[in-house]
């Protein structure tokens, strides 16, 4: 071959090589199977995502272990592909030609799929890969999920294929390994998880905002969440005022949820509507879901106002 032809061929290859891309194969055949927390194998059609999480490498896995809020996890997730109905749909964001070529479950609980044409500009070779498995067709309708990774689960080099198998060591960041199963887990309730499920499939996602009141009952979503109410049904408040009578002072009572770690519920009082301070309360009743807190008007106070404040953190 003449040198010019060799050079031309090399130049042609060099020009196209940046867009040549690799692929990954996800398979559990012969390895550990995905199962729900009760050991029931995940059914065909459950949502499975492959990708990485855009988090600082040094803290990425610790953060993933500690974060239960779907909205946060989703905001960090850079998808490579996911098994959805009609597999083959382009799912690789910002990629020109990435496809989930094959996705099916050879037998219950097993997964096999190929994602090809992974652009190195989208996901650099060597980037750690994660498999995010749900127990339903959509995240919104799921009750459990698991996030798994392994040392060998890395984004491929250009033109190379990488197998993501479960025959070797697999690390469950959310969920657990039990016997020959990789089990999902029910995530703790957070505002984001609550809103995701309560407004699943609603085309107007503004209704899921913490400050929305889609049922018009005067209770914004954050209050509905804290008080375990239905944001689509007009509810009564879980706070009440017992007005002053001749022999007793006014008392303000409200419910404080048990088991919700991402929201605080406190009472504030004010003599003038301008300066508000936390009201000292005592627990006057309790049940499985709530403590009832009660605060009374200060002795001698003729003018007192109360309100309930809900404070939480939400994903941006």
């Amino acid at each position: 071959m003449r040198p010019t032809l060799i050079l031309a061929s090399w130049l042609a290859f060099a020009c196209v090589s940046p867009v040549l891309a690799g692929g990954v194969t996800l398979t559990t055949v012969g390895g550990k199977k995905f199962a729900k927390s009760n050991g029931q194998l995940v059914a065909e059609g459950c949502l499975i995502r492959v990708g990485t999480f855009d988090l600082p490498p040094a803290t990425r896995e610790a953060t993933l272990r500690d974060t239960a809020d779907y909205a946060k996890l989703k905001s960090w997730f850079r998808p490579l592909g996911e098994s959805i109905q009609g597999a083959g749909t382009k799912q690789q964001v910002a990629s020109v030609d990435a496809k989930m070529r094959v996705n099916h479950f050879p037998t219950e609980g097993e997964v096999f799929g190929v994602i090809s044409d992974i652009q190195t500009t989208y996901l650099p070779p060597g980037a750690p890969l994660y498999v995010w498995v749900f127990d339903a067709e959509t995240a919104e309708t799921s009750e459990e999920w698991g996030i798994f990774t392994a040392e060998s689960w890395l984004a491929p080099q250009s033109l190379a294929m990488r197998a993501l198998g479960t025959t070797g060591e697999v690390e469950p960041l959310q969920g657990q390994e039990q016997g020959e199963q990789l089990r999902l887990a029910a995530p703790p309730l957070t505002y984001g998880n609550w809103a995701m499920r309560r407004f699943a499939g609603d085309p107007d996602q503004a209704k899921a905002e913490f400050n929305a009141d889609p049922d018009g009952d005067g209770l914004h979503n954050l209050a509905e969440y804290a008080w375990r109410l239905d944001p689509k049904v007009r509810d009564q408040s879980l706070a009440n005022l017992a007005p002053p009578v001749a022999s007793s002072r006014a008392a303000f009572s409200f419910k404080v949820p048990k088991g919700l770690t991402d929201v605080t519920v406190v009472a504030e009082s004010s003599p003038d509507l301008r300066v508000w301070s936390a009201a000292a309360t005592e627990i006057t009743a309790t049940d499985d879901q709530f403590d009832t807190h009660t605060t009374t008007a200060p002795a001698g106070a003729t003018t007192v106002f109360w309100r309930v404040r809900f404070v939480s953190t939400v994903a941006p």
Partner: protein
Amino acid sequence: MKTYQQRTTVSLFARTRVGWASLAVVFCLGGSTDISVAATSNIVGHYPIQVPAGNSAWVSGLVCADVFEGAAVSVTADTDGKALVTFESPGWTGTQFPLHYAEPQTGSASGLAIDILSTSASTLKLDATPAEAGLSAGMVFIVRKHVTLAGILPTGGGLIPFSDSVSLITGPGTQASYFYHGTSQKWITAQGADANNVKIRPGQGLIIQAGSAVTLVIGRGDACYVKATPTRVRLSAGVSNLVGALNPLGSTTTLGALGLGSGLQPFNDSIVVLNPGPLSQSGTYLSNGANLINSGGQNANGTALPTGASVVVNVDTAKSMVLAPVQVAP
């Protein structure tokens, strides 16, 4: 124990000065920024008014709970011209609002209590035509029960049964008085009819006649909610309109704080402040277009007015005016 519904208001702490000051609101978690958000319920409470012996003019500084808030999907006119305001799946029953009003939050009638004449599964029929109240689809309405005599003074409040009275202006030039029936524990008319559910409109003044001085506590009934939005009142021409701000604070306020100055026709409409006891006129004030002025032409915006007191407003042309809301810190 009576339960009062709470409405929540919200704030994005990361975006408010108060929020920044009161909470460590933003923190980093694994490279992501979370936002601390807060919602507060509606405010409930109580306050006293010092009613002297004799006659004095007052107003309820509190309202009943918001029972619905939503945007209208359509506004049409019924066969009699009254507005039919329809909401999408509001979730109420057809007979739920017998003593209630709908308050538009925007438009030319924003803040005005418009009586609900009837209710169907998703539609309110209001006592106004769409044109006169400027009602249209997309407007947000809040529904509340009217304050009633039993709702503001559920046990008579300390007034002497069959002797002390509460009087309301019921129409141009007409007035009705009500008494507490100590035995049946109800409010009654002069003819003995049940008057527990007599409506007191937002901002409507009431005259209390008491044989001796008494402290009444407002907020003992279902009217125990603070209303922090402007209130629009209708004023009739050529008669005395008794109105007052929905201000439950226990301190003296001012004429200017009523917020009526800008709505008065300059050098024509007037505000009359009444002396508690004899209910005589203690002062008459006009607007010069910018401020309220006294008979000497001096700025009278700062004229003291007992909190909870109502005033007489005289206008030449029927109109609606807006009472300023009480200020509430977030």
